[in-house]
């Protein structure tokens, strides 16, 4: 097989794998009666989308998810940025230990995180509440944010800060006049990353939220398990939107701004 045929043969399944899932979800989200073995639905309906606009369960859940994910992103980046900066200034085993500590909540099975966190949050009276679920989401999100900023600050020359200091900048000025402008892009990217960690979270929401906090993934999971495919597909498409937007924005930003950092 020549290289050319192999490339063409690979492009077809690649395109299918990338586009067919979204097409399947879109079709399922507008399928009315659709009996086996019909390949296409017998009738189409916009019912699930119309009721979404009317503010049904899915719409409420999407609102909840937006709020929780935005709050999670704010918490994770506020703590993760100084943490990543501190880790980047370490050398040798200290940095490895610190990075491993930040990686722990990322690598720990969500179920393990949830069982431990549930106890702490129940004790604080935050079980089944929005702040409780947000704090729980912030634990893995902070891990991601810290590791992300570790990478950012490893590339950022610390002498930039020394230079500003020697020119008479105060601690606050170094942050507001030097670091903040330089870090605008990384901060935006870290906010998106932490938002997405919370946006897709399932087990932490189930255990900490105790059924009272109904985020979008929790509703979609319930619809899939109940066999309500049309609603499940509608919610699933909504779940893809933020990350798809982020990827599109990231690509266009990268194109317009060739030198990152």
């Amino acid at each position, binding site marked *: 097989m020549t290289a050319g045929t192999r490339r063409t043969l690979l492009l077809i399944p690649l395109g299918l794998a990338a586009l067919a899932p979204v097409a399947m979800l879109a079709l399922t989200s507008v399928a009315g009666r659709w009996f086996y073995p019909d390949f296409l639905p017998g009738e189409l309906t916009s019912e699930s989308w119309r009721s979404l606009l009317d503010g049904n369960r899915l719409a409420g859940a999407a609102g909840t998810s937006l709020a929780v994910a935005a709050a999670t992103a704010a918490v994770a980046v506020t703590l993760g940025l100084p943490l990543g900066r501190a880790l980047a200034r370490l050398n040798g085993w200290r940095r490895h230990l610190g990075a491993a500590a930040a990686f*722990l909540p990322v690598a720990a099975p969500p179920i393990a995180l949830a069982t431990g966190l549930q106890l702490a949050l129940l004790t604080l009276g935050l079980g089944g509440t929005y702040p409780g679920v947000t704090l729980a989401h912030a634990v893995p999100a902070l891990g991601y944010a810290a590791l992300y900023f570790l990478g950012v600050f490893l590339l950022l020359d610390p002498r930039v800060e020394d230079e500003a200091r020697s020119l008479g900048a105060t601690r606050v000025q170094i942050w507001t006049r030097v670091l903040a402008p330089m870090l605008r892009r990384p901060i935006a990217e870290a906010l998106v990353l932490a938002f997405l960690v919370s946006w897709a979270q399932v087990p932490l929401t189930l255990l900490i939220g105790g059924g009272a906090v109904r985020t979008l993934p929790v509703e979609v999971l319930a619809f899939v398990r109940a066999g309500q495919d049309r609603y499940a597909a509608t919610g699933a498409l909504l779940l893809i939107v933020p990350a798809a937007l982020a990827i599109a924005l990231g690509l266009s930003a990268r194109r317009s701004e060739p030198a990152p950092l």
Partner: protein
Amino acid sequence: MIADRGGRHAVPLSALLAALPTLVGVGYAVAAATGLIGDGGRGFSLDRTAHVLAEHVVWRGLFWTLGTAAAATALATAGAVLLAVTFRGTGAADRAARALAVLPMAVPHLVAAAVFVLLLGQSGFLARALYAAGIARAPDSMPALIYDPWGTGFVLALAWKELPFLSLLAFTILATRGSQLEETARSLGAAPGEVFRRVTWPMLWRGILPGVIAVFVFIAGSYEAAVLLAPSNPLPLPLLTFERYTDPDLERRPDAFVLVLVGLAISAAAVAAHEWARSRQESFEA
């Protein structure tokens, strides 16, 4: 320097902050698993741990979880390497292929699992397509690809889900390394297969190894994909943990903490492996 000393003190503290909730969870799990606190706690004893670890269903679940995670990771890794090596050029087809490969990264795990339920279920898209093609004329003539003991649907869904991430890593490595080493090997008389085996593959493998480890541990801990696609026998470790944790029988609930510790042990091993792979990569780049 003063600033440096301040930094050194700040670090263990702030790193601890990130790890603290997890560490508290581990501490609680250890105490609950050994009967020191919680439901059914009657003072320190390893009886519960020994009892849980003697259960057949635990070992079957653990092996299922590790086996399917390894299979899905291997599939995704092989796919990523194949795509990276095939589409590393600068032509339009190469760029289109790289964009297509990375696109599904936007899909959350839950959605990936839901898509595979719609695709592989007994009256799913595949069954309907096979019917239309005259191959399988009844829903039950379609082999079970979800909830099956082998985890076929689970492995395929997660391999598909993780392929974009590993592909992106592989693309980036080949793009930043360039092809100098390979051209040198070729000019020294290496055959194409040999160039791949002795130059491209070692370079790629070193670079994507941390990502591969992260993917493995992520799949092994995955809850939502397992809920939608995995069999109930063997029951995957995350589902078994959840089931015990919410067991109506309060006596059995602390079992979950023994299972939590098993899951954490897998993660801890992965974190150590990840750091080792990353530091090797750093020293390779330096």
